[in-house]
């Protein structure tokens, strides 16, 4: 019934096509073309929407400060804002996936996920630093180097997430819902201080600087011309985008195209019945934590490479922003995490680019607007943009 009513509205149909993965068709369409088209569509729609708002602002406030024409600034900055928005958006999307996958199977917010992200950044740093100390960093093939670092971060963050679930959440599975939440916050504090203590012991310093400056190809910026405007694109931005696209396409295949992915979806829809089908529910939950943690770890090390320095406290803000992204997209919805992450990242880039021109505001107010979104979403559309579309019939 519901679907036939929706079909009457072509816009809804289009939105539905882009937000619901296809269940039929050739594998190359389902698992490669479709997710790529989806990512491109999301980026285009968000970029168009935010550009429209930027031009609207330029129309409403033509000269926010004396001698500064907002229209000129928007024209000049637009390509740069979109590019940096895409790269930070992918980082948020990858972290948001961890929140959303775990919420999907356990209906629980893993507040330690921001620290799993941080640990990914630290492990990535350790691996890169050790390769550098051993003197191989110049000689290794760039693709091999980045892949090794990212895979190491993914594996360790994934295993860490599985371990955390086993010791801190599983014993509380039947406790009231608030209890594992408190346990998660405890784990989060523990990990922060553990990493701080460990790095203080090993390196006598917990500000961990990626040795990116030792690499010619990572240090510079690539100039890209957009008409009259030239944008200097950081190589790490390109790495983030490539890494995110590859892992996101792989995730889509894993969730929608493999037996284990089917098992995870079954567990997230009905745990008791999934058990009756012969699915080992605990194993599926561990697997979900692994996948979510691995994405957090990859995001952590890509973020670290991009920013340059990681500290044990670095996880909190990106973690809360990614959580906002997950809620914005609809917590529990994998596509929603992608949409939400890209939206928050782009919005942040636009705000950072344009807020400086407004008196009494400034870049430092960026986060206020991001969290305003969280508040507005929670008030007006708690199920998020894509919602948890469970149309259960009883």
């Amino acid at each position: 019934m519901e679907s036939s009513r929706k079909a009457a509205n072509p816009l809804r149909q289009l939105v539905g096509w882009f937000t619901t993965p296809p269940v039929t068709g050739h594998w190359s369409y389902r698992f490669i073309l479709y997710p790529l088209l989806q990512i491109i569509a999301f980026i285009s729609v968000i970029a168009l929407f935010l550009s429209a708002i930027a031009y609207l602002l330029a129309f409403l406030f033509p000269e926010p400060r004396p001698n500064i024409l907002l229209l000129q600034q928007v024209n000049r900055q637009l390509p740069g804002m979109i590019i940096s928005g895409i790269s930070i958006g992918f980082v948020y999307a990858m972290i948001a996936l961890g929140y959303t996958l775990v919420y999907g199977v356990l209906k629980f917010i893993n507040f330690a996920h921001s620290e799993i992200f941080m640990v990914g950044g630290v492990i990535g740093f350790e691996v890169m630093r050790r390769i550098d100390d051993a003197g191989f960093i110049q000689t290794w093939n760039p693709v091999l180097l980045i892949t090794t670092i990212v895979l190491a971060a993914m594996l360790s963050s994934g295993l860490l997430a599985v371990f955390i679930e086993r010791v801190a959440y599983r014993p509380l599975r039947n406790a009231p819902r608030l209890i594992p939440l408190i346990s998660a916050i405890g784990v989060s504090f523990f990990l922060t201080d553990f990493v701080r203590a460990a790095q203080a012991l090993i390196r006598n310093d917990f500000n961990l600087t990626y040795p990116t400056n030792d690499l010619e190809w990572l240090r510079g910026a690539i100039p890209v011309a957009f008409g009259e405007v030239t944008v200097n694109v950081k190589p790490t931005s390109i790495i983030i985008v490539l890494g995110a696209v590859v892992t996101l396409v792989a995730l889509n295949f894993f969730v929608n195209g493999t037996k284990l992915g089917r098992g995870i979806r079954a567990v997230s829809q009905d745990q008791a019945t999934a058990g009756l089908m012969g699915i080992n529910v605990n194993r599926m939950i561990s697997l979900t934590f692994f996948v979510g943690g691995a994405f957090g770890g990859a995001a952590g090390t890509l973020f670290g490479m991009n920013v340059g320095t990681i500290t044990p406290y670095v996880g909190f803000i990106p973690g809360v922003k990614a959580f906002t992204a997950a809620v914005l997209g609809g917590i529990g919805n994998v596509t929603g995490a992608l949409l939400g992450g890209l939206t928050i990242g782009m919005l942040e880039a636009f705000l950072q680019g344009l807020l400086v021109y407004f008196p009494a505001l400034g870049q430092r107010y960026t986060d206020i607007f991001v969290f305003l979104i969280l508040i507005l979403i929670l008030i007006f559309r708690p199920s998020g943009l894509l919602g948890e579309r469970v149309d259960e019939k009883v």
Partner: protein
Amino acid sequence: MMAALLELKNVHTYYGHIHALKGVDLHINQGEIVTLIGSNGAGKSTTLRTISGIARPKRGQVFLNGKDITGMKPHEVTALGVGHVPEGRRIFPLLTVQENLEVGAWNVTDKATINARMQQCFELFPRLKERLAQKGGTLSGGEQQMLAISRALMAQPSVVLLDEPSMGLSPVLVEGIFEIIKRINADGTTVLLVEQNAQMALQIAQRGYVLQTGIVALQDSAEMLIQDETVRKVYLGEN
């Protein structure tokens, strides 16, 4: 006497402080259709949930083929050949019909076997074949019941526990479902059937148990139960 396929010995199950099963003894022999009848809250579903491991009994034992399966996890019980069609069908609403069936055959690794079993399900329920790519949540109640039964059969269980398969279905569909249950049984699957519709259940069953507030009040062959005066009054609605 031949050993029972499934046997419950003095099973006590609690939901929190509620004593739902107060010492249930029952057995099901290979190849039988056995029905459990009783009013709401008598413990019928709890008995099934205890067998398949969703509910854990506090006392007593459950045996499958003479093996003690008390306290095993649901997926372990399923792997031993117990299929459970839960109350309210519990289709995975966001998985397609095909995916629902594939999940039903979770422990089968061979793709050809899965396809062969799917074909067998389509023989029982041709309608499912047309709905393969549709999401489970969009099926009608009757189709969901067909899918729920097929999904349990995908694992080729030696005994299948059916919880209220006729609930919420039109009389025509109910008759169809009971025909299918007879066919499944004729193909060699033992059936434990929980039903509100005691009349129809007793017609296809060989034996029956009457549960009353967590204990077995009566047990007999189906013919005897149909003729029993209390059963007729209380469960078959006759004066």
